[in-house]
């Protein structure tokens, strides 16, 4: 007993560099990303890279990914892998459209959350109570979610819209824009000055056409962080994901916390579905609308190392790539390849300073390959651009999977002893 008491103070005394606080790292990252984009847009001559239109589209496309990713975060922090996010999202789109065309957008949000949560409840029953393999249950829920919505659409939407694959139009939210600020930023953006115009463009995109759903989604991120990392409930929930046996022995209700986490996860995924239905460009349920965004949300969460901040970064990156392609096509996305080359050059310098020769050499090789790609192509074929998130995820996993840390008991079936 005494020896352990004596040993304890030694651990923090070990020589460790003081790390920067998380918010500082995040600010540096954002500033770096904007600087990179601004240099790229100057060198390649594509001001669309940081235009307000692109940002606005990117935000809209990032929302479903962000919400699905948050759903994944809740479930996996409690140790339940949720491949079923896609199915829950599909159920959310149907619920949003069903309630939305009758009672307006707020009802759509509520219904989407309810439908998504039902999917989550099913996943919880299968994985927590019955101990079914999480992947298996998730795949089954994806099948079930797609089937259920197809059936319900044929039953309910077909008489109304004459199309079994589409719902009647849904009323959208009124959007807000910070008018005065937006105009001022618009002037700055039109000025085409390095960095300042780029920042103005991005900010203008962020404050124009903001819907209540955008605000809710963005508030849900700090809220989730607060609940999961700063409350007693969150500590218990995460302890269930790290070591359920230890948590149980301390009196934490393992099953209860897992149930709550997975149901919340489904609700968030459903809300992500609502974000798709209430997207101003579309405003109805469409079969196959989710297009694998549930999976992309999961990928964004892994990209973010099971943390809310990283998840936001992942969702922003994936939404941005998608939005850029939608607004300005494959040529501008090719400009991003140029940006990656610049980024890799910076990494090479950094690795050389740290005398990591192997990493530096491999970064040089990748940079050269990317540069050759950039000068040999006229544009990235549109077929591939939509799958940029998939490629980024594979690359990130390949490079960083050793440094990513998922909850220790993630995906393991726990049975009360």
């Amino acid at each position, binding site marked *: 007993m005494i020896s352990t008491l004596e040993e304890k103070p030694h651990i923090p005394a070990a020589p460790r560099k003081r790390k920067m606080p998380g918010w500082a790292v995040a600010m540096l990252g954002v500033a770096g990303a904007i600087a990179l984009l601004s240099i790229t847009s100057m060198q390649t001559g594509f001001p669309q890279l940081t235009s307000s239109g692109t940002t606005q589209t990117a935000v809209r496309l990032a929302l479903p990914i962000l919400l699905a990713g948050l759903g994944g975060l809740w479930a996996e922090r409690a140790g339940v*892998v949720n*491949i079923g996010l896609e199915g829950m999202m599909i159920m959310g789109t149907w619920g949003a459209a069903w309630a939305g065309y009758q009672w307006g957008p707020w009802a759509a949000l509520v219904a989407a959350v309810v439908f998504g949560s039902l999917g989550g409840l099913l996943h919880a029953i*299968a994985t927590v109570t*019955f101990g079914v393999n999480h992947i298996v249950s998730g795949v089954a829920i994806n099948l*079930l979610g*797609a089937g259920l919505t197809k059936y319900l659409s044929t039953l309910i939407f077909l008489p109304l819209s004459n199309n079994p694959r589409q719902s009647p139009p849904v009323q959208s939210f009124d959007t807000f824009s910070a008018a005065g600020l937006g105009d001022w930023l618009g002037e700055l953006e039109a000025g085409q000055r390095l960095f300042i115009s780029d920042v103005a463009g991005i900010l203008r995109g962020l404050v124009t056409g903001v819907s209540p759903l955008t605000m809710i989604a963005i508030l849900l991120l700090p809220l989730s962080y607060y609940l999961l990392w700063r409350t007693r409930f969150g500590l218990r929930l995460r302890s269930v994901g790290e070591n359920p046996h230890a948590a149980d022995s301390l009196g934490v209700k393992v099953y209860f916390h897992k149930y709550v986490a997975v149901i919340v996860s489904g609700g968030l995924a459903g809300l992500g579905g609502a974000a798709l239905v209430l997207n101003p460009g579309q405003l109805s349920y469409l079969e196959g609308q989710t297009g694998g965004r549930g999976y992309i949300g999961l990928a964004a969460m892994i990209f973010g190392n099971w943390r809310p901040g990283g998840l936001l970064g992942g969702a922003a990156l994936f939404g941005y790539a998608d939005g850029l392609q939608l607004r300005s096509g494959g040529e501008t996305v090719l400009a991003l390849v140029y940006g990656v080359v610049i980024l890799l050059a910076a990494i090479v310098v950094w690795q050389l300073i740290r005398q990591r020769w192997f990493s530096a050499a491999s970064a040089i090789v990748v940079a050269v390959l990317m540069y050759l790609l950039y000068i040999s192509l006229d544009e990235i074929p549109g077929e591939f651009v939509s*799958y940029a998130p998939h*490629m980024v995820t*594979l690359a990130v996993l390949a490079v960083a*999977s050793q440094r990513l840390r998922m909850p220790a008991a993630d995906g393991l079936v726990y049975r009360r002893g």
Partner: protein
Amino acid sequence: MGHLRGKLLPPALAIVFSLLLCGVALIISGANPLSAFGAMVTQVGKGTTFVDILNSTGIYYVAALAVAIGFQMNLFNIGVEGQYRVAAVVAAVVGGSIALPTGIHTLVIIIVAAIAGAAWAAIPAILKVTRGVNEVISTIMMNGLAIGLSAYLIRRDVFGELRGNNIRTAEIPESGWMPGISFGGSGTMFGFIFVAIALGIGYWIMMNKTRFGFELRASGESSTAASAGGVNSKKMVLVAMLLSGAIAGLISLPELLGRDHTFSLNFTAGIGFSGIAIALLGRNHPGGIAFGALLWAFLDKSGLALDNVGVPREIVTIMQGSIVLSVVVAYEVVRRFELASEQRRVGRELGTVGGAA
């Protein structure tokens, strides 16, 4: 006897449960479940339905075999969907651009498809072995990329050509087709079904009679015990994944060689995910998978009759989904029940031994 009951009871329970569930759903939506199920069963004898069911059983069977190889060692190859898509487009492009004698041409297409499927599976396999990347997430990403790649390859300025409203690859010449068995008005059965049966037999032999199969199953039961017994787990992951991908590459061949002869926008998607469900239904056993594939195909095809009695045919998708979910739950419940009774039995015997000593 008890052993067999443990294997057959769960799927039977699951099917009954799903029928009840869908029956309730039908009643709620104002339809008569008995007439709906009756229409599904009687549909089998009409027109080409029976042969259609057989054809699609063959396709699902191959898909489920591909998934099952991975499942045997707890390797979740969610990427079968992408692997067969890539294999289909590559096989169609190669098959349509070469000229070879009849038979050899077909064989070359089959080999190309298997290699393409294995190559697409090799990426997540290598990532897993060298970088420790979880195969579930990487294969899901590869599925997305496969859709992009196939859409790119059939672009008109790449390998595609415009025929009517449809973009497709060049048609495979007749020397590369695989003849089927014609039943006149009842349709034509794919010749590839015999290949599917051969694959099933090969799978059974590999799993039960070869060292590789033993090592595969051992890795699935306990990877630590297997590696202690000298099984190279990295090699096993690599080989199992490549094999799974190679079989996945064959999934689209019945349609490609026997009916379509080209890869077009009408490509049948989603078979890979059905394959996962069927492998679960059949518990990775070649016989069980055959039954699962037959059930799946029956639900798919006979569902068409539901429109005639005024029921949306999508109810069969719900039925399929609920069968899968309830079957895995049922297997788990039965497994726990058997485990508990085993423990009681062992406890009882140990108790008597202890009493005698």
